[in-house]
């Protein structure tokens, strides 16, 4: 039969392909890194510097999406989320040790701040939080029910009002105005950046690290750190599994000065104080910088603001007729 030869060729090819795949798997340890959407470019660099005969499989997407995926079975050895409540979900699912935050840095491997990303020339002269809610200004930030970055953005906005000595009620009213000026609800911080870069909106609320990446890629944008802004702290942990020891070694290495330097070179604020001092020029301090602790800590903030039915944000979105589901 004429088809016998092609079938034979197919089988030979198949065995070759599977043989090479199998052999590759047996040689090295393979760690899977599951992270939020922002450190997509920095992890390959960290992994290359780490070496040690370990191969890595990476996946980056919105923080809450990733956290739920890992809880649903996505194989992960190392996780780096945007907010600690996404880590708590895995602790509750018995996938991450409850002492994950017990090192010197409380489990936070890198920091950032919430910034305004603006188009070159800043045609609408946006400088302050109040400028965001001026008539005709379109603000881009992701969906708070899937993106950790969006939650940092919203709480930065809220906290900035408190810093201006406004009351909680006034701050909530400001949030409502902010949502009225929001023009898109991307799933993740990185998606929001891509939306902004493709021409939508006048200002993007984003991580400083993401903004720095966009600039280094030559995009026609710049960023501005508002006077009052929120310090972003991204948690990192090893996941209980067959590769836990190897994962823990990698996690510990990510705090060493060598690794922290790579974080800093790629736009993330290092947590190691000596490295931080060296890179002070790239990461200016802000006079009215505040942390999530100032606002009550993530567990309490999450419940008050981001509960999908009764949270402040859910109520705002319902009153504006926008979808609330994350």
């Amino acid at each position, binding site marked *: 039969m004429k088809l016998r030869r092609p079938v034979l060729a*197919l089988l030979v090819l198949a065995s070759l*392909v*599977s043989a090479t*795949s199998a052999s590759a798997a047996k040689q090295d340890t393979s760690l899977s890194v599951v992270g939020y959407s922002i450190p997509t470019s920095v992890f390959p660099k960290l992994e290359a510097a780490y070496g040690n005969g370990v191969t890595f499989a990476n996946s980056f997407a919105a923080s809450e999406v990733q956290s739920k*995926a890992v809880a649903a079975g996505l*194989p992960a050895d190392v996780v780096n989320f945007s907010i600690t409540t996404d880590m708590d979900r895995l602790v509750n699912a018995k996938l991450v040790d409850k002492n994950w935050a017990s090192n010197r840095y409380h489990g936070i491997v890198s920091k950032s701040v919430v910034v305004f990303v603006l188009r070159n020339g800043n045609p609408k002269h946006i400088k302050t939080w109040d400028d965001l809610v001026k008539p005709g200004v379109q603000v881009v930030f992701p969906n708070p029910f899937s993106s950790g970055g969006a939650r940092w953005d919203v709480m930065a906005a809220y906290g900035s009002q408190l810093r201006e000595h406004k009351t909680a009620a006034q701050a909530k009213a400001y949030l409502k105005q902010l949502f009225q000026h929001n023009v898109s609800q991307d799933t993740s911080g*990185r998606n929001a950046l891509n939306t902004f870069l493709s021409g939508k909106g006048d200002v993007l609320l984003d991580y400083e690290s993401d903004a720095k990446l966009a600039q280094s890629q030559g995009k026609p944008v710049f960023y501005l750190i508002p006077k009052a802004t929120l310090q972003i702290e991204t948690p990192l942990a090893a996941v209980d599994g067959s590769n836990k020891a190897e994962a823990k070694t990698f996690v510990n290495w990510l705090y060493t000065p060598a690794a922290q330097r790579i974080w800093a070179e790629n736009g993330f604020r290092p947590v190691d104080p000596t490295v931080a001092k060296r890179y002070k020029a790239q990461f200016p301090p802000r006079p009215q910088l505040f942390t999530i602790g100032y606002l009550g800590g993530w567990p309490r903030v999450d419940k008050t603001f981001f509960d999908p039915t009764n949270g402040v944000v859910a109520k705002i979105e319902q009153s504006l007729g926008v979808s609330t589901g994350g």
Partner: protein
Amino acid sequence: MIGKHAVRYGSLLYLAAILIAPVVLVFYRAFEHGPGPFWDAISNPAAVHALRLTLYVTLITVPLNTAFGILCGIAIVRHRIPGMGLVNAIVDLPLALSPVVVGLALYLLYGNDGWFGGFLHDHGFRVLFATPGIVLATLFISLPFVVREVVPVLREIGTDQEEAAATLGASAFTTFRRITFPAIRWAVAYGVVLTTARCLGEFGAVSVVSGGLAGRTQVLTQYVQASYENFDQTGAYAASVLLAGLAILTLLLMTVMKRGDRSS
């Protein structure tokens, strides 16, 4: 005469704008900065692995769906069981169904809380977020092609020769090997080409079930999306060129087979 030219040039212009121009642009953008960056983009480990995984899944899926396609085609046309008409409709369903729905179905079955997921997980067998899940998704969406090519041919050739063989004492398998299969071999070959193309290009269902771990469970189509979203335009276009090249190869094979069938 004007009408004729209007139809010709109008339709060709439409084709150019919607189809040809975009594909030409892919090649242009991939090689815009020269062959060096293109080669770097497709030889990085994640891209190589994505290509290998895609080919691996295809090499498993195509033979399975081909065997099923032939069996099912025979069953539908030479049916004994009533309700084969319904079977015919179900076989066609993957063509009309959104790939995301397919992925969701597999997620519901093989997720940790799924019908089979918990059981399989307890026995150390992971389906979702691993290669078996990708294979199952690809089997679903590429299921119809061989069946649909085989069925009309089987209908057309009728059963005379097969009946004659049976009266001469040939077994079912001999009848199949000597009479049925030679008659449908071009249909099978054509169906195999279509199935292969569909496997290589699958994206929606795989996006749901694979987890997209670069270097482990990320197929080439997902690599295109991930590169694009990570400002790696050259990488995205380079991988697209690979896929587009395979697509054009598929088109050539399809054209050759159409001619081959006509001549045989």
